[in-house]
Structure formats: C-alpha cells, structure tokens
C-alpha cells in the first residue's frame, strides 16, 4: 500500500517536472521563431510598441535572437559523436573535482582547527578574512603566472571557489554545536579527543554537506570562466579545453547553436555533481533524513 502511494507521488513529481521542461521548450521555440509569427498583421501593434521603445521591430527581444531548441538539439546531435565535445566534459569535470577535492581536503581540517582552537582562530582567521573577499576570477592572472602548468592554474581557481565556502560553513557549523552536548559528554567521561571525534565531527557534518554543495556550485561557475580566460589549456589546440572553452570557441567560430549546447551541458554537468554530492551527504547524515 505504502509503496503504491509512494510510486504515485514520485510519478506526480515526475509528471510535473516533465510538464515544466516541455512547457519551457515550447515557449523557447515559439520565442526564437518570433520572426515568423510576428510578421502576421495581427501583431502589428506589438511591433509598433517594440519599435517605440527602441527595440528591433520584427522579433521578440532577446529570446527572438536565441537559437531555437530544435536547432540546438540538431547542433548537439552534430557534436555528440565528436571526441572533442566529450573531452571538454572530461576536462571540466577533472578540474572541478580536482579543485573541489583539494578544497575539501584543506578546508575541512582548516575550518575545524579555526573552530576548536582559539589560538588557531586568532592567527588564521584575519588572513583568511582578507583573502576571502577576493573573487576567484581575480586570481586568474596571478594563478597563471605562479603555477607551472595551465591545468594547475585552473584547478587552483576552482579550489578557491569552493575553499572559502567550505571553511566558513565548517567554522559556523562547529561553533553552533549546542554546549549541552559537550557538557553531557564530559559528564559521561569523554576525553577531549573523544569529544572532538564524537561531538565536533558528527555535529559539523551537516554543515560540511551544505558547504560542499554550495562550494560545488561555485566551482562550476568559476571553472567555466577560468577556462574562457586562460584559453582552456591552449596546448591542446582548442579541442578538449573544457566546456567553458567549448562555449568560447563556438562564440569565436560564430556557431550560436553550439554556444547553447555548451551552456546546457554545463547545466547538466553541474546538476549531476550536485545530485551526487547530495546523495553522498544523505548517506553521511542519516539522522537528518528522519525529520
């Protein structure tokens, strides 16, 4: 009984999702074909209105200039069997995961240290706070200069994207652990190390999950920009320079459909990574599933 109800519910969610996507695609298709249907006499007032506010008269602003989903799909079919396209996915994923893993590996211990030690906080936090407002993209030139390879330079930028968010979340999470848990543990004979292992770590875990999900999002944002600016590892000769470079290359080559293919690919790649992270997070914090 419960399984059937659950199935129905998921179905409904699935249906809503499908309707939402189809509706979006239909509106987009209509929008980008506005040149065709707006030529009809019925839309004369609309054309006049657009003209009056200083826009192009014969199609809808913005969306009328975007390639239609059907054209984008056709362009996608064109690149789907090209190794270069998948190489772009692979490159971007590698950079994102590399930078992200490094941010976790450095950020979690660093954040925990800041949270549990007053001395570490006093020494580490001011520097951290000065560096934090610098946007990762501002590091691109310095990163290219100071890292031996382009690959490391881009990975460093993605690392920065996730690092600050992870540290801030870890510190905040560890500090908001209820004092009573420590008092209870201490009364029951827990040592300092026990309290770190059994209270601080699990108590911070939900914040680590949240911090890494947000950090992962930022990582995708910065990897694309870093690839565009740095030329996506130009030793590869353009092909396989990552999804950001794929977009830039399509722009330079004048293939507007491919720009959109690249954009949607990033959307999907980001979604896949967040979803992976979320399911990992759910496994790591089973007690939060039951609320």
């Amino acid at each position, binding site marked *: 009984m419960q399984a059937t109800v659950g199935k129905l519910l998921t179905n409904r969610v699935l249906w809503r999702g499908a309707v939402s996507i189809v509706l979006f695609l239909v509106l987009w298709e209509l929008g980008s074909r506005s040149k065709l249907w707006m030529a009809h006499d019925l839309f004369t007032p609309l054309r006049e209105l657009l003209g009056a506010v200083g826009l192009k008269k014969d199609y809808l602003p913005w969306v009328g200039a975007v390639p239609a989903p059907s054209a984008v799909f056709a362009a996608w079919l064109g690149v789907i069997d090209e190794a270069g396209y998948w190489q772009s996915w692979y490159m971007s994923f590698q950079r994102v995961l590399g930078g992200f893993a490094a941010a976790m590996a450095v950020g979690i211990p660093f954040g925990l240290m800041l949270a549990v030690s007053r001395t570490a906080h006093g020494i580490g936090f001011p520097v951290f706070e000065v560096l934090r407002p610098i946007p990762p993209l501002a590091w691109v030139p310095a990163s290219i200069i100071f890292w031996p390879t382009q690959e490391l330079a881009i990975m460093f930028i993605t690392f920065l994207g996730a690092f600050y968010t992870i540290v801030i979340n870890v510190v905040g999470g560890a500090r908001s652990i209820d004092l*009573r*848990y420590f*008092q*209870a543990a201490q*009364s029951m*004979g*827990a040592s300092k190390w026990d309290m770190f292992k059994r209270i601080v770590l*699990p108590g911070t875990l939900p914040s680590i999950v949240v911090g890494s999900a947000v950090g992962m999002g930022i990582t995708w944002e910065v990897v694309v920009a870093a690839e565009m600016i740095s030329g996506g590892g130009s030793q590869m000769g353009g092909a396989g320079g990552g999804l950001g470079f794929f977009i830039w290359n399509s722009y330079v080559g004048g293939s507007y459909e491919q720009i959109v293919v690249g954009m949607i690919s990033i959307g999907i790649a980001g979604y896949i990574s967040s979803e992976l992270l979320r399911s990992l997070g759910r496994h790591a*914090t089973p007690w939060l599933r039951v609320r």
Partner: protein
Amino acid sequence: MEMREPAPAAATRGHILIDDVVKVYDPEGAAVMAVDHCSLEIEPGEICMIVGPSGCGKTTLLNAIAGFHEITSGRILLDGELLCSSELPKAQPGPDRIVVFQNGALFPWKTNLENVIFGPVMQGRLQRGEAIDRGRAMMADAGLAGVEHNYPGEVSSGMRRRVEIVRALMNDPKVLLLDEPYRALDSLTKSVMHEALLEIYYKNKVTIFFITHDLEEAIFLGHRVAIMTTRPCKPKKLLTVDIPHPRDYSVLTSRRFRELMEETNEAVHEEALKAFQAGEKEG
C-alpha cells in the same frame, strides 16, 4: 519539624550537602547575585524537588553540582567528598552526577541505543557488547523496546526524555540532576512521564535533584519540596511530602495532596510575582 519520610532503604549513596553556597555573576562589573547563602541537605535516594520561578537561580545551583559552573563561596559535598568550595570553585563533571537537560541533550547523530551506551563505553567500564546488552535491558525496562535503532529525532519527545534518563542511569550515577526535563511536554504526556520516572526510580534508587516551576509536579514526585526565593536563590520553605511512595496518579486527587498544594501555593505565588515584577527572563 515534621516527620521526614524515610528515604528508600536501598540507597546508601548520593548524599548531597549544599553548604552556604553563594554565586555572584560577573564579580568585577555589575554584580548579580544568583544564589544567596543557600544551604540544603539531600539524603541518599531522596527525590528533592526544587521549585521556583523561571530565572530564579535554581539552574545555577544545579550547574554548580554538575561541575559546569563555578561557585563564588560556600561548598558542595557529595557523600562527604568535596565537589567544590571557594578554594576550588568549579567541580569536575563526572559520571556520578548526570544532568538531564531541559531541552534534552541526546546526541542526534547517534541512535537511541548508541546514546544509551555512550557513558559506560567512554568510561571503559563496560565492553561495547556488554554495554549493548545492558542498554537493551534497561531500555526494555523503561518501555523503550523497539526504538533502539531509531534516532532520537524519530521518536516522540516523551520517549526522548525516557531515553535520556536511561542514558543517565547507565552511568550508575549517585545523583540524577534533572533540569525541568518535562517543561516542553504537554500535560497529558507529562503525567505519563511522571509515573514512568517513578517506575524507573523504584527500580534504580538514586538521589534525584529535580528542578521545576510546576508545584503539582513537585509534590507528586518529591519526598521533599524546596521552594526557592526568586533571584537571589535560597530555600524559602521546605515541605516534606508525607504521602507514601510508591505513588501513582490517584494521589493527585487525594485530600492530603490538595492540602499540601494549598499549604505551599501561596509561597510559590509570592515568589513568582516578585520574579515577574523584577522582569526575570525565562530559563
């Protein structure tokens, strides 16, 4: 002095002596006296109820016994051993004095059973396997069979309190320090919890230091009720509840219970009014 009802014969430990304890917050700046020359002696195995308005300083006293806060002067002894004094203002928290907190302090990331076995395993008193056996048995005894592998967030707040009391008892404490544990519960759940607590108590005779602002709860559960003055806190009136244990809920409608309520109600109300006029904050 009225005849004191003898404490249960089984208990030979858990004697608390609070001797002239003073607690002043922030002695340098604007000094606020939370506890004012408070003396109280609690017998082994006694349920001593501490009643006073919110914010009167009773939690300060509990924290001093538990070893969470310092005292300014005076001393507290447990079974003749000095816990704290003006030379040693902060007691060392230990498994002989376990607090059950107002809003509960079960670790949400551990299952109920893992919570229950935390103390003995930490202290190295029991092997994990032994602790699990003992924990299961005690949980079953407290009507908690079946929720061992649930997380605290998955069970009702009444059950969570019971798990927490079992967790406390697993440490084999001399004293249970309960800080308004049933404050957040509705009155129906509360009445069930009271009987459950007594049932657990009859099986595990420990001294209970129980803070509440609910006079009915105090008289129903306690051997003695100490009515405290509002901040600064000290005993205003000590009431010996001469209703024999074991008690159940029929006690609430008995004539003696009503008489005791009437006898003490005014003292409690007076202090509540003072606290209200002083604008004491909750907690």
